[in-house]
């Protein structure tokens, strides 16, 4: 039995959207070297849409695959939609992760949230107004 699904191995072997965006509108980094995982997400945002996204990851196979899949899931999507990306969605899109690797998908979710928060902190006017009932 293989350790990972074919999807995970595909995203690990051929990660999508690898690299750095020099003039990124939002950057998010999570994890630390002590635990063996660091993910950095770079976002380019125009008209409230994620026009481009790139990542760098230091970590295991599932950490690299989770970052890659997460970038695919938000690329070209409205910011509001990207904000709702969950680790579960990332793991499901990868046809599942072993239990002890689920934290990799959590890192991907957190890195994107952090990058979006970074974007909002630079563009407070873009921040959606909290809906009140």
């Amino acid at each position, binding site marked *: 039995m293989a350790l990972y699904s074919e999807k995970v191995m595909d995203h690990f072997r051929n*990660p999508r959207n690898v690299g750095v965006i020099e003039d990124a509108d939002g950057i998010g980094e999570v994890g630390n070297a*002590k635990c*063996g995982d*660091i993910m950095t997400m770079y976002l380019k945002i125009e008209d409230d849409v994620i026009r481009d996204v790139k*990542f760098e*990851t*230091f*970590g*295991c196979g599932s950490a690299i695959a989770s970052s890659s899949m997460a970038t695919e899931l938000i690329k070209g999507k409205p910011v509001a939609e990207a904000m709702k990306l969950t680790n579960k969605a990332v793991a499901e899109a990868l046809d599942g992760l072993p239990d002890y*690797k689920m934290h990799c998908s959590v890192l991907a979710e957190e890195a994107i949230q952090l990058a979006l928060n970074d974007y909002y902190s630079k563009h407070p006017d873009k921040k959606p107004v909290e809906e009140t009932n």
Partner: protein
Amino acid sequence: MMIYADNAATTKMSRAAIDAMLPVMEEDYGNPSSLYTFGQRAKEILEEARSQVASVINAEPREIIFTSGGSEADNQAIRSAAMLGKKKGKNHIISTAFEHHAVLHTLKRLEQEGFEVTLLDVHEDGLVRVEELEAAIREDTCLVTVMFANNEIGTVQPIRQIGQVCKNHGVIFHTDAVQAMGHLPIDVKEDNIDLLSASAHKFHGPKGIGFLYVRKGIRLTNLIEGGAQERGLRAGTENVASIVGMAAALKESVAHMKEDTDHMRKMRDLLIEGLARIPHSALNGDPVKRLPGNVNFCFEGIEGESLLLLLDDRGICASSGSACTSGSLDPSHVLLAIGRVHDVAHGSLRLSLGEDITEEQVEYLVKNVEEVVEYLRSFSPIWRRLVKGEAEFIL
């Protein structure tokens, strides 16, 4: 091409071992405890194997107890020595921080039962200092257990000197020789060893079988109660075929030890030389006092599991001490014990060579490890920071 470079994990069975086992399974399948001739034939085969194993390490046949492997032997050896100590009111045990878990976890259990354990420093070179060991011995020390050679970084300990110190102080000395057996000369008398654990599948024998050497006069405590097999010290019908396979594999390993290990050391040093050329890498453990086939490196800025997966794609079987390969949050306790920080320990690679390793294979290993490390660094945020000077290189 497949290069199996994980011989510290397990080895391919030798032809000699398989050939020795088949007739025991097909023809002489009797139970050594049965009184009829057919059973006694199996008993003879069993005792012949015991003599062979004993002679390799200069022991008496009655000093060899067959076990299910290295872990069981470690458990029984340590527990037995602890029980002997307890009877005399001695509750202190000395070991090292980088033992196999079969030893460390047994010691943890004994601590819960009231024993006190001192773990010796193994320093940056992965070697125990005999004078530090001697200084740690107390009036109430009942056991010293130090591995012959480390399973991850391959460092070979000064066993004979450690044994001598233990002898001088009247303390029982156990060594986990799982990685050394069949690869290094071992003489339990000259090396002053009281208890020794070994496992067949590390020297081209079958899995699930090993042995414990017990110096005459040391009383063992049973882990498995039942019938009177192994002189009542380890119950259960003997795994005769595997025991015979183990004896044959050991005999063969020892017969070719000199030429095999000369060749492996040459290949090992070539591999170390090649991998050391990768920038910001470092060999783990002493370069000379190490197992003939062991190479263990740390590469800064990358993580071990992704390295292993990409090497697997290129037909290379290897292992790593990264947390992700162990299923825990911490990287290898061995690498931490020699002072590697977490960041670097996650990027470790162990290549353990077999006797049949060729120079072409070593070149292939170097080339592919180099390429994969470079690739993983190309999108590692840690590496980017190091290269930009935003963080300081450790290696």
